[in-house]
């Protein structure tokens, strides 16, 4: 038994392999990093094609929604499609949360992704209505601006117009409510730099923000 060689080989071969795998345990492969959280939300304009059935949120069909006009409010943008199955899962939760937070001025918009608006209208009807208005996104321009990876993805924009959080996959009512509560709490202190949810943007956009 040559212990020297054994130790050397083990250190040189075994060490790196184990280190790499151990490092892997600290990662989440499903997490899709987005540079957006902590940065200014890309502004968008979209035409309303489904009005929404909550009084506080309803808009007329054909109206134009501009994100820039909602500065000072918390805005939730949900990208969805009628062909998306996971969107069915979150539909109820989104409408409920939207209705609950409408009195506090939180705006919800559904952004139709890669779909025809009549399909979207049918879908909303099938699902038993939607509390908030749905917007069309011709040419998926907004989706591209937001670096959409798939649907559903949901972006929460805080009062300053910064993206506070990006949800990938179906949204849960509890998690969304908690986030909105914490954002609304900071309303009184717009300059608070210790905002836990939307950290002060760093100078470099990077994937590190979610680590």
């Amino acid at each position, binding site marked *: *038994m040559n212990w020297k060689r054994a130790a050397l080989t083990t250190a040189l071969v075994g060490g790196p392999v184990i280190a*790499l*795998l151990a490092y892997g345990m600290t990662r989440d492969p499903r997490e899709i990093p987005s540079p957006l959280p902590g940065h200014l939300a890309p502004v968008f304009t979209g035409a309303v094609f489904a009005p929404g059935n909550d009084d506080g949120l309803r808009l007329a069909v054909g109206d134009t929604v501009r994100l820039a006009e909602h500065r000072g409010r918390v805005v939730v943008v949900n990208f969805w499609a009628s062909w998306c199955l996971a969107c069915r899962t979150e539909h109820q939760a989104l409408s409920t949360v939207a209705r609950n937070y409408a009195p506090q001025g939180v705006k919800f918009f559904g952004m139709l992704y890669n779909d025809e608006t009549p399909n979207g209208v049918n879908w909303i009807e099938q699902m038993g209505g939607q509390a908030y208005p749905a917007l069309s996104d011709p040419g998926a321009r907004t989706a591209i601006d937001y670096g959409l990876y798939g649907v559903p993805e949901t972006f929460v924009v805080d009062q300053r117009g910064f993206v506070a959080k990006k949800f990938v996959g179906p949204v849960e009512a509890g998690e969304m409510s908690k986030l909105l509560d914490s954002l609304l709490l900071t309303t009184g202190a717009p300059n608070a730099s210790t905002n836990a949810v939307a950290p002060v943007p760093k100078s470099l956009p990077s994937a590190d923000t979610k680590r």
Partner: protein
Amino acid sequence: MTRILGLAAIWVALAMAVGGIVLSIVGLTRKKPALVQSAFQTIYVTFALLSLAVGAMIYALVTHDFSVGYVAQVGSRSTPTFYTVISLWGALEGSILFWGWVLAMYSAVVVWSNRHRPGGLVPWSGATLQLICLFFFILLVGPANPWHLVSPTPLDGPGPNPLLQNHILMGVHPPLLYLGYVGMSVPFSFAIGALLAGEIHSADWIVLTRRWTLSAWALLSMAIIAGMWWSYEVLGWGGYWAWDPVENASFMPWLTATAFLHSVMVQERRGMLKLWNVNLIVSTFLLTILGTFLTRSGIISSVHAFTTGTIGYYFLGFIAVCLVASLILVAGNSEGLRSEGHLDAAASRETVFLFNNLFLTGFTFVVVLGTLFPLVAEAFKGVKVTVGAPFFNKMTIPICVALLFLMGVGPALPWKVATQQQLKKMFVLPSVVTAVIIVLSLVFGMRDPYAIGAFAFAGFALTSNVREYVVGAMARVRAHGEVFPVALVRLVAANRRRYGGYLAHMGIIMVAAAITASSSFRYEREATLKPGQIMPIKGDLSVRLKQLWGRDEPQREVVGADVEILNGMNVIGMLDPRMNFYKSQDQPVPTPAVRSRPSGDVYINLMAYTPDGQSATLRVIVEPFVPWIWFGGLVVALGAMISSWPTSRREPKSVPYVTTRAVPVGVPEPAFGNAGISTATPSSLPPHTS
């Protein structure tokens, strides 16, 4: 009750494993054979206990005992009994339980069949196997405990994952896979056992190891092919391999095991590559554990990955222990594993084996790299990447083509050195076949150099391997006056290992050629049809939608389309692609329908339909020669079975070759392999023996 019984069985098995390991170590170091014998007993008892636990789990599943955690997770009263039983391996905990049972079974068989073998090899190997068992038992009482109590007891469960109860191959692929995958623990335990017992220099352990590796390899080969078939029949995309981490997990150890099965011959015959072979065995096992870690820990994203928990940390720890222990043992003993021989000539079988190993390990490296690269990239560059099929295809197709070429060269070349005359005799016919295939491919409009290369070298290798059979049988016909078929059977029977190997080659060639053909000539069309409408596919082939129908089954609702396949105006077949809606899931499970003929498949998937039954969207895929992939898998397994069949020592009268003087073909050389090749005077033998 069942719950307590099953859990208790695992705990006692765990204690048995600990006891057995201690008994082995004490017995071996203090030289007390009685203790070693008791350690053997614990291995048998462990197997009995695991059988009890598996039996209890199946009983709980079948009787819908939802107080058992695992049953509550995968069981459902409406699931057919067959799928209820096989949901034993349908989710994490059950699959670990099944793994533990297979491992305990192998341990018991290994020890039982070698219990009279003198020396420390078997006891040390047994202890190694028990150590691996121990790890799985710890999982079963810890993070993968299938027996935890569910209270209050639910009335019904969600049933297995719909994809896992949608096809009969779910009952075939996983057990084969576990048998093959877990089987790779046995060669590993022999290697570790031989190292610990100081018997690594003996020729004995490598023979034992080779036989076990071959059996596990055959099962793993079948499992991989069955997995391809399953994904082809179930997933609805008309493909069978996607380089998903789970697929790679099964493929990596297969590659290293294949390399070992070839290089071990060089060790047996020439005393070379000893260290290399130990490394291959150890790597094969470590790759099985790595593959399991990757898919169970969730560190690599994969469509097949099980839900994650703390189990990843256990696997990480286990990999670390196995890797460090193996490296210390192998590196520490590496000086004793020097080669006894050296290469004599470039044109010899050893050289081909060397290249074969080079390519197979290169192949393994590419697959490991591609699978782990997302991790490496994130660790060093902080970027998220995914490595997909284009990388793997680009990197591995040339290696596959090269391996096909070697498959044709290897069997034809003699050991040590080939004369020019021999080379000429062996390669004229295969080379002609190759040339003809290349010309034909070009004439028929093929332009992809790799596809042409794959066909050409497949033809080359096939001719070369078939030629070995024909020449061998013809020699018997001449020498004994036997009829050709009889001569063929006796030739194989007398020299199973060699001709079994060639048969396995033919199976691989079939698989390779069929994969090339089906991917090169794949053709697909999609259209929305009303009942009665016809969609032309290709040439005279078209399909007609007859009707849409719906049906309620206890565990699911089925929507199907009756589709006629037409050749010109004649109906030549009927297919019913469906969508199954399982009650536990809102996503429909597409169930393609396939019409298989040796010339190829017509594969129809129901993509969408209108609820009123007025139209259906169908995707029709025509894939030539696909069934040959599955058939090739069977041929590989048959070849491996012939090869690994224990050779009994025969009476001298069965010596087949009166004409060969040096070493009669078919008479096994004691302890070494019986490839039927004379090491003494190769050039003096007739061509079929060299």
